[in-house]
Each structure stands twice: as C-alpha cells, then as structure tokens.
C-alpha cells in the first residue's frame, strides 16, 4: 500500500502541475475583483434585527438654535418628504397642518421667566408605544432594535395611531405621491413617522440624516446611538448630563431624550 503511494507521488506529471498553476492564476484573476469589491461595499443586513441594541437620540436643547431647521430639511430630503406639494385650492393654513412632517421644530416659552427653548420633536420611539397598542391591523409595530415604524402593506389609514400618539409625531398622506425614493417607499392612504433612518441602519451607516445635518451646521445638538451599550457615546453622555423624557408621566420609556427642558 505504502509503496504504491510512493510510486504515484514519484509519477506526478510536471505538465499537469503547470496547467493547474495556469488555471489557478486565471481563476484568481477573474474572481478576485468581485471578492474585493464585495468586501469594500457597505454590508447590508443579512440577519434579523435583535434586541441587543436599542437605537435612540439625545437632544441637547441648549445647543439647538432658534431659527435653524437644518434637521427638518435634511429629514425631508432623506425621506422624500420634499416631494409633496400643496393641493390646488387648499388654504396654506390647512396645508401647514396636513403636510407630512417627521420632525417639527417646537418652541417652548416659560411664561414666568420668559426663557425660550427650541427643540426638534419627532417620534420618540417609546418602549411601550401607544400607537402600537391601538393599531387594529398590526401595521404599527416596534422593531426588535427599538425603532417604532409602520408597515405600509398592512396600514389601512384609520389614523388611530395619530390620535394615540402624545407627541403628534405621525402624519397621514392625503394625496397621491410621485417620484418616491427607492429606499423610502411611501404613498397615499398610509400613516408614517420618523423611523430613525431605518434604511441607513440596515446598510450599516453610522448616524441619521438629522444628526448629520445638525453637525454640518456646527451645532451638534443631536446625538444618535445605542442606548443599551453602556460604552456608547450616547450612553456616556446620558450618564453625565441631566436629561428628561417628554411626558415622562406616561411611563412610555422613550428612546429620544432631551436635556435642558
């Protein structure tokens, strides 16, 4: 047995080796660019989201500037909200109250001291979201990573969730939409709200459109991160800085926290 093996080792054909070498080289040349390109591109999510993370925002109202609405504009651009236009004949007042807005700039004034605070108000991504409680079809749901969003395939447009939300965070699309973005499908007859740029989450990007815009303006008032990771910058800052949930009396455990209110 052993002898036979030795004999076959000795009989290796050098030309066969040369051919294998050529074949391996050609294969590598063909396959390598694809493999390298694949490694460089941002990896889209291939496994289901888990509750190992909980995404949230920390908004420092001291840094939020009155008159600036860069976050709102960036959100509109990112999610295609700037595609909507006022239906003919509708009063500007009605349009203002009905147009979809995922972020609203809110101004608060303490009537006794006169102190004015401005802050961006969006879906607060509650741990116990009232919109999910009331939804009759299961369209309004909380993803495992804490993002509260709407499955438009299931939404029947009843707007119960809009009634239930204490933050006026949701919008209803009244008119037909045109020119939607591939990453953000949206259309008439469904309710929608901030989803913490869920397409960015799934493609492994670092932050949200509003955070990027606020930083580009030099204000750095909004911070995005994982509330469950004690080492994340947002958790560190939450540990140091006094912050509040809006309507904390409702015990919703919001994922969006505000400091200085």
């Amino acid at each position, binding site marked *: 047995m052993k002898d036979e093996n030795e004999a076959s080792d000795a009989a290796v054909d050098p030309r066969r080796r040369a051919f294998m070498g050529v074949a391996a080289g050609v294969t590598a040349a063909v396959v390598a660019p694809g493999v390298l390109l694949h490694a460089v591109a941002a990896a889209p*999510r291939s496994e*289901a989201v888990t509750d190992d993370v909980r995404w949230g925002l920390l908004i420092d109202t001291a840094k939020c500037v009155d008159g600036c609405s860069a976050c709102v*504009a960036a959100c509109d*651009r990112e999610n295609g909200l700037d595609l909507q236009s006022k239906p003919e004949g509708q009063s500007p007042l009605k349009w203002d109250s009905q147009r979809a807005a995922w972020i609203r700039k809110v101004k608060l004034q303490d009537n006794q001291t006169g102190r004015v605070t401005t802050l961006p108000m969006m879906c607060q991504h509650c741990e116990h979201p009232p919109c999910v409680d009331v939804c009759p079809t299961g369209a309004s749901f909380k993803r495992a990573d804490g993002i509260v*969003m709407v499955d438009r395939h299931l939404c029947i447009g009843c707007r119960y969730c809009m009634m239930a939300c204490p933050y006026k965070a949701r919008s209803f699309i009244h008119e037909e939409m*045109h020119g*939607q973005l*591939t990453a953000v499908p949206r259309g008439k007859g469904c309710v929608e709200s901030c989803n913490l740029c869920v397409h960015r*989450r799934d493609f492994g990007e670092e932050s949200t459109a509003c955070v990027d815009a606020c930083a580009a303006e030099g204000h750095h008032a909004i911070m995005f991160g994982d509330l469950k990771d004690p080492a994340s910058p947002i958790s560190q800052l939450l540990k140091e800085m006094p912050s509040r949930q809006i309507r904390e009396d409702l015990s919703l455990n919001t994922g969006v926290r505000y400091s200085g209110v």
Partner: protein
Amino acid sequence: MATAVLRASLVAVGLVWTLAVQTVQAEDVKRYVVEGSRAAGLESCVEPTERMRRQHMEFIKHQRIATVHEGIRTEKYSLSGCVDCHISYDQERVPRPINDPDQFCGACHAFAAIDLNCFDCHAAVPNGARLDATAIAAHRAAGVGPLVQSRRDGEDR
C-alpha cells in the same frame, strides 16, 4: 513549454467563448434586461423563468415581511431588484416607469387585467441619489417638471 502555451491559450479561448455566449444571450433579452445589470449575466432571474412568471408575487410577499419587520436587506427576492434589472430607458436615457402598460411589469399586468398598487408607494424607476429641492424648483421653473412619474398599473392613459 510549447504544450504549456497551448494549454494556456486553450483556457483563454474558453473564457472568451463563455463571455461571447453570455453577450449573445443578453442581446436576445435586451428588451427587458438592462445591459450590465446583474440579470444580464444570468441565464434566468433569481428563480427559473417559469417559476418567476407564476410565483414572483409570492416571493416578494414573503420577502417584504423579512425586510420591513426584521430589517433583512439581502433577501434573494426584491421589488427594487426587479426595477434595477428590468427598467428600460427612452432615447434621452430617461428611465420609463416599470409599471407603464408597455413596460416589464405593466405590460403583463395590463394583459392579465390586474390592477396593482405596488408603485403607488414604491419607486417605479431606480431613484437613489435624487435632485435636491432647489434643483427641482429650477426644473419646474424651466417647465421640465418631474421627469418621471409613477402611474397605477393598467390605468387609462
């Protein structure tokens, strides 16, 4: 040495032949497959053509649950994947909405008398990097208007 050269050239001829066959196949189906797209290099879609014709709606219905609720973006089936590979362009290189009655999705749905509303919400053309608000305003001012508009399948035009 001579045999090695011969073998190497045979390998090269084989590779060129494979590419040529693929190109010829792509020529045949150019009407509905974008040149250079993922589909152009494949013999059939993500499933054999017969299965795709009958069951594509089942495939994307299951995929949408995985994508919307679980955030999985690498599913084999995808509606934006249909659009990416099967969109066609007019002479000015402007993409035609895929649900138009003479386009990939729309033609078949119109023939089968199916009225769907996938593209009421989903983009009917590849629409990633988009014009910003000022550019859109400039287009409007110039009277060009939105270049691409989605329409419901099979609707009267």
